[in-house]
C-alpha cells in the first residue's frame, strides 16, 4: 500500500498535464449548460455603466495581449455590445501595444451585419470597422466610437491625459487624422471630460495605475475587468469605492455576459474552468492523502 502512495507522490507531472488537458477540452464538446450567479462586483459595474446618460463618452483602455484573451476578450466584447445598444460612445486606447488591436478584434466579433460594406454619400463604409451593427443599433467610427491606438509611457500617459488628451494621442489609429477632426472627440480635452473609464487589464500598466492616476487624481469613475490572477490584488480598490465594479477572470466575463443578456464564449468556457478546478482540488486531496499515508507509516516505523 505504501508503495502506491509513494508512487502517487512521485507521479510524473506529464500525467497531471494530460488529465488537465482532458478536463479542459472534453467539457467543451459535451455542451453542458451551467447556471452563472452574478456577484456584487459585476452587478456594481453594470449599475455604474447603466446609470450613465445616453451619449456619455467612455474611455476603454485595453491593456492586455493575446495571452489574456480568453479572460478579457469576452469582457471587451460584452462591453462594446452593451455600449452600442445603449447609445454610449467610447474611445479606445491602449497602454499595451497589442491592446488597440485586441479592441479591433472585439469590434469585428461584435458586429452582426452580414454584408461586407455599404455605400453612403459616395463613401464606402466597411461593416466591422467603420460601422458596427448590434441588433437594431449601429455605431459609426468617428461618431460613436474611435480607436486612438497605443502610446508608450505607461502611467505617465494617464497623467499626461489628465492635462491634455491631444498631447498623449494626437491622431487616431485607423486613419491617422488629428483627433479634433472627429465628432466624438469634440469637447474632450482631457481625461476628466470622460464620464467613465472601462479598463481591461492583464498586468502592468493596468487597473492599479488607472485607479492611482485617473480615479484618485482626476476623479473619473472607473470599472475594470482583470485576469483571475490580478483580480484579488484590486479588491481593496473595490472595497474603498475607488473602483466602480470589477470582473475577475473568466467567471467575471461570464457574469457580465449574463447581466448584459448575451451569453457567448465566456459562458461556454466556464464548464471547462469548473472541470479544471475540480480536478486540481482532487489532485491536492490525493497528494495530501499520499503525504499523510507515507508520513504516518514512516512515523510508526520510527517508533
Amino acid at each position: 500500500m505504501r508503495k502506491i502512495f509513494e508512487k502517487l507522490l512521485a507521479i510524473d507531472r506529464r500525467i497531471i498535464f494530460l488529465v488537465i488537458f482532458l478536463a479542459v477540452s472534453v467539457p467543451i464538446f459535451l455542451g453542458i449548460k451551467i447556471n452563472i450567479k452574478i456577484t456584487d462586483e459585476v452587478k456594481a459595474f453594470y449599475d455604474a455603466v447603466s446609470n450613465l446618460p445616453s451619449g456619455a463618452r467612455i474611455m476603454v483602455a485595453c491593456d492586455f495581449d493575446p495571452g489574456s484573451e480568453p479572460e478579457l476578450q469576452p469582457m471587451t466584447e460584452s462591453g462594446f455590445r452593451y455600449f452600442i445598444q445603449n447609445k454610449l460612445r467610447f474611445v479606445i486606447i491602449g497602454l499595451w501595444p497589442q491592446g488597440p488591436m485586441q479592441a479591433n478584434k472585439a469590434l469585428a466579433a461584435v458586429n452582426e451585419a452580414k454584408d461586407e460594406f455599404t455605400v453612403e454619400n459616395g463613401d464606402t463604409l466597411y461593416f466591422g470597422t467603420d460601422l458596427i451593427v448590434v441588433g437594431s443599433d449601429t455605431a459609426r467610427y468617428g461618431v460613436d466610437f474611435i480607436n486612438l491606438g497605443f502610446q508608450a509611457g505607461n502611467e505617465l500617459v494617464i497623467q499626461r491625459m489628465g492635462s491634455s488628451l491631444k498631447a498623449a494621442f494626437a491622431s487616431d489609429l485607423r486613419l491617422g487624422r488629428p483627433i479634433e477632426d472627429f465628432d466624438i472627440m469634440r469637447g474632450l480635452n482631457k481625461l476628466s471630460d470622460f464620464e467613465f473609464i472601462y479598463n481591461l487589464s492583464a498586468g502592468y500598466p493596468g487597473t492599479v495605475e488607472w485607479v492611482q492616476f485617473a480615479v484618485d487624481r482626476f476623479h473619473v469613475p472607473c470599472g475594470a475587468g482583470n485576469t483571475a490572477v490580478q483580480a484579488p490584488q484590486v479588491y481593496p480598490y473595490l472595497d474603498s469605492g475607488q473602483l466602480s465594479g470589477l470582473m475577475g477572470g473568466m467567471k467575471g466575463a461570464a457574469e457580465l455576459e449574463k447581466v448584459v443578456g448575451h451569453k457567448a464564449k465566456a459562458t461556454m468556457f466556464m464548464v471547462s474552468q469548473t472541470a479544471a478546478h475540480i480536478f486540481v482540488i482532487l489532485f491536492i486531496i490525493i497528494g495530501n492523502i499520499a503525504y499523510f499515508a507515507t508520513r504516518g507509516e514512516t512515523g510508526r516505523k520510527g517508533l
Partner: protein
Amino acid sequence: MKREIPLILTAVVGLTFVVQFFIPHYPLGFMADMFSDWFSIVAACAIWLGALNLLKISLNKVYKKEKDWFFAIVTIISFLVIVIAGFFFSGGRRFQEPGTNFDWLYINVYSPLSATMFAMLAFYVASASYRAFRARNAQATILLLAAFVVMVGRTPFSDWLSNLLFMPEGWQISNLSNIIMNFFNVAGQRAIMIGISLGLISTALRIILGIERTYLGGD
C-alpha cells in the same frame, strides 16, 4: 562627469514630479508635462533599441554559428516578415488597420502563439499545486481549506455541493468564497500594498537623493 550627470538628471526630474504634485503653479506643472512627454519618447525609442538589439544578437549568433543558431535564424526571419509586411505590404492603408497583412499575421500567428504560452500556466498550476500544497501544519491546513472554498466558490459547481451538504442560506460555499475574497483577501492585500508602497517611496527617495546608485553600475 559620467556618474554625476545621471545623478543630477535623476534628482531634477524626480524632485520635479514630487514637488509638482503639491505645487501646480508654472513652471512646475509645465516641466512635469514636458518630462512626461520626454519619457514617452524615450520609452518608444527603448522599444526600438530592444528590437535592434535582438536582431544584432541573433545575427551574431548565426555569424559565429553558436549553439542553437538555427533558432536565431527563425527569430530573424520572423522579425523581418512582420516588419516588411507591416511597412511595405499594407495596400496603402495604415498597417494596424483590420484587413492588412500585419493584422492577419497578428490574428493568425502572434495571437495563437501568445495564447498558447499563457495556456501552459494551467498545467504548471496543477503540477505546482499537487506538489506544494500539503497540510503540513495548522496554517497550511487553513490555507488549503480557504483555497478549496474559493476555487469551488468561483464555479457553478459550488451551488450543487452546498445543497448536497445542506449548507444554510448565507453560509453556502459561494458566500464563504465572497467573505474570504472581500475580507481576508482584502486585508492581506492592503497590508502587502502598504508595505510595498512604503518600500517603493523609500527606494525612490534614495534614488532621487543619490543614496542608491546601483542602477548606475556598482557603488
